[in-house]
């Protein structure tokens, strides 16, 4: 089979940082190829080189046997290469139809808007993947999964021969992932080549014909998917061996109930009841829109309950503000690290000590020495990889940023720690570290609620789990029943 793409010896540096140190990538026509690697390994950079966005410092790009010495974005599009970025690059305020047809119309340099033509282009595009959507809906009102399908349809409008998908499953529920995989299979049957960028093991095995793994800007391995095993894959990505996570000793859960929700209802969910024991890790799982996030906000004083009770340590409590939650020693690591969890441009020290401004100051006057000490203690404890805690939080990788959010609340010594999507956008190494840390904390008596739609995470991390669906609690799984099969059954 001939190669649709062959890049050799690609080098690219930014400032003094070598993002790519001579990467080779060969993709056969019609195959589904997976490009894997941890955050910061150069996956995104190589995609941008292929799409002509970055000019490589060295190396050659060959598309369909033609060498492109100076690949530009328009060369890439002409060669049939389309990239679907994580943010999909859609116009949120325009309709589906406009999004689908816009580029085509622009490319033809048409000066007037012809709605009928727009509709024809858009209809053809969505039919290609049997995607059923209201063409007049505004894109921002659609769920993430639909946005992604719009981006895929748009790629097809451009007569794509080779579609690159950058971490397409990050924001999808398991059901939506399955739908995406069906569509990928469909595209493949039409002879379209796909480069699928991911670091999720199960997906990579399910979908790809061959796999290329990058680590720190270098090739580690390229092989057919059939020759890869999970252990090897993890090792190639991280360069580390991990002991099996679920092999931790089963522990005795204390009978002491620290938090109880009784028929709790608020915006986004209703009639939820559960008990959280001391030293326990309780999973709350469900799809996007199941009310899981709203529940976590209610327990943190950010979503006022309309009925029902929250009882903490035997006493009914009112949680109407974060201050009240903080006083009760309840902490929340929020869903969106970038907008809710961190002050991205402020220093790591500031980010960690923001919860301690009162306790580390004297009559309102800050004690800078104590603030710095507190921050460096946590940087050390959680092994946050930074040269200097005065650097901005934005200089850290996703995993280390998440550790900063954890540190900021652990510093306040919470009794109950709620984490919403604790390892979203975090590489395997940091994920492992965070899971280990949470288990340790639970062992020491902290009660933890993990809100997650990552079934593997819930199974390996939690002692018990409750399942939510459409704003209602639809099930509870004890440790002995807590496995991937049961969870998937319960959440679909």
């Amino acid at each position, binding site marked *: 089979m001939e190669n649709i793409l062959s890049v050799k010896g690609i080098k690219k540096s930014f400032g003094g940082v070598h993002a790519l140190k001579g990467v080779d990538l060969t993709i056969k026509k019609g195959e589904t190829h997976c490009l894997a690697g941890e955050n910061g390994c150069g996956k995104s950079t190589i995609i941008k080189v292929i799409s002509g966005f970055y000019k490589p410092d060295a190396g050659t790009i060959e598309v369909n046997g033609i060498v492109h010495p100076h690949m530009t974005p328009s060369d890439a599009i002409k060669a049939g290469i389309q990239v679907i970025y994580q943010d999909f690059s859609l116009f949120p305020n325009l309709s589906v139809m406009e999004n689908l047809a816009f580029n085509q119309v622009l490319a033809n340099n048409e000066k007037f808007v012809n709605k009928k033509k727009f509709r024809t282009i858009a209809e053809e595009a969505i039919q290609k993947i049997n995607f059923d959507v209201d063409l007049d809906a505004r894109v921002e009102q659609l769920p993430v999964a639909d946005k992604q399908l719009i981006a895929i349809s748009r790629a097809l409008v451009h007569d794509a021969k080779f579609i690159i998908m950058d971490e397409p499953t990050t924001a999808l529920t398991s059901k939506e992932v399955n739908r995406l995989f069906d569509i990928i299979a469909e595209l493949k049957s039409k002879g379209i080549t796909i480069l699928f960028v991911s670091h999720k093991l199960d997906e990579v095995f399910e979908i790809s014909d061959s796999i290329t793994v990058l680590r720190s800007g270098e090739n580690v391995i390229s092989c057919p998917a059939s020759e890869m095993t999970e252990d090897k894959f993890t090792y190639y990505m991280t360069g580390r061996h991990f002991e099996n996570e679920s092999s931790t000793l089963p522990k005795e859960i204390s009978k002491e109930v620290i938090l109880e929700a009784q028929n709790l209802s608020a915006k986004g969910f209703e009639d939820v009841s559960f008990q959280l024991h001391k030293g326990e890790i309780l999973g709350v799982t469900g799809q996007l829109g199941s009310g899981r996030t709203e529940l976590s906000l209610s327990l943190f004083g950010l979503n006022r309950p309309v009925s029902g009770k929250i009882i903490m340590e035997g006493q009914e409590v009112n949680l109407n503000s974060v201050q009240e939650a903080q006083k009760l020693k309840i902490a929340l690591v929020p869903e969106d690290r970038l907008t*809710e969890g961190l002050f991205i441009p402020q220093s790591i020290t500031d980010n960690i000590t*923001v919860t301690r401004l009162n306790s580390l100051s004297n009559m309102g006057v800050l004690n800078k020495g104590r603030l710095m000490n507190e921050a460096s203690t946590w940087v050390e404890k959680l092994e946050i990889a930074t040269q200097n805690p005065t650097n901005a939080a934005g200089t850290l990788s996703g995993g280390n940023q998440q550790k900063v959010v954890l540190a900021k609340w652990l510093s306040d010594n919470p009794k109950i720690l709620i984490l919403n999507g604790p390892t979203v956008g975090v590489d395997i190494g940091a994920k492992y570290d965070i899971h280990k840390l949470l288990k340790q904390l639970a062992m020491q008596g902290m009660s933890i609620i993990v809100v997650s739609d990552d079934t593997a995470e819930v199974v390996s991390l939690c002692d018990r789990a409750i399942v939510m669906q459409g704003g209602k609690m639809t099930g509870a799984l004890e440790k002995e029943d807590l496995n991937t099969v049961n969870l998937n059954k319960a959440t679909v």
Partner: protein
Amino acid sequence: MTKVRKLHIDDKVEKLIFIFVVLFAVMALTKGNQILKPTVFQTIARQVSEIGLMALGCSICMISGGIDLSGAYIANLAGISAALVMQKTSGNIFAGMLCGILIGAICGAFNGVLVAHLRIPAMLATLGSYQIFQGIAIVISDGKTVQGNKILAKFAMGKVLGIPIPFIIFAVVALGAIFLMGKTSFGRRVYFVGTNEKCSIFSGIRTKQVLLFTYTISGVLCGIAGNLSLARINSAKADFGSSYIMQCILISVLGGINPNGGFGAVPGVIIAAFILQMLSSYLNTFPDISNYYRDLIWGLALILVLIANYYSDKRKMRK
């Protein structure tokens, strides 16, 4: 990418001191005979006190992610109220000044409620409120100039070791502002709220309270400025000092306050106030440059500073 980007709070201040020294040298070399006089310095010191206080208020609001465009009118209203109280109480200076500061606080708190609780964008809220403050000032003064108080004016002309008393007041308040913003937990919270309000809420900061205080403090600073202005000119008028609004923004931005909030050090603002006031006095020494050019010059200066900041931030990001 793990790039090293340190937070140099002080390198902007260093740059400003450098500009200050250069400007001073240019002035001394070109117009030394007119500039290097104690009376000129004393005039600069008096004027910088008023504009400096208002600029401090504007800067603190900018750090919190907003802006206060109503400062000059809060000062006018405060000055007029103070003068009227002094007249009504047959010359009770303290009652008058206290009233001026109180009016400043009330006006500031009003802005704070608009911004923090009613979620009106600060730019619009303070643009609207300045009309209200000006309107009230016109009504209570019948649109006329209100006479000040002779004893107060005399007091304001006083000097300690050659330093005008208003300037000493400014210096004390400015040191207080530096301390508040740089060394207290309240100050840090203002920076946090200005960086990311949502994240501040998730971090347990009472953002509404912080914003309300921020605008109230700005109002108090403007109230003090109103008192100083009343003392210096010995009168107050509803439309006095409208060009100060523009200059306050210019001083804040030149002083290194990030107009998007969350960054900037207060000492820089104070140096910037000096630079601007000196420049203004320097321009006075050129009879050819009439006052008609002032607005043009300040406007150009503001845009130039913004452009310069854009490029220096961009360079820093690349490093």
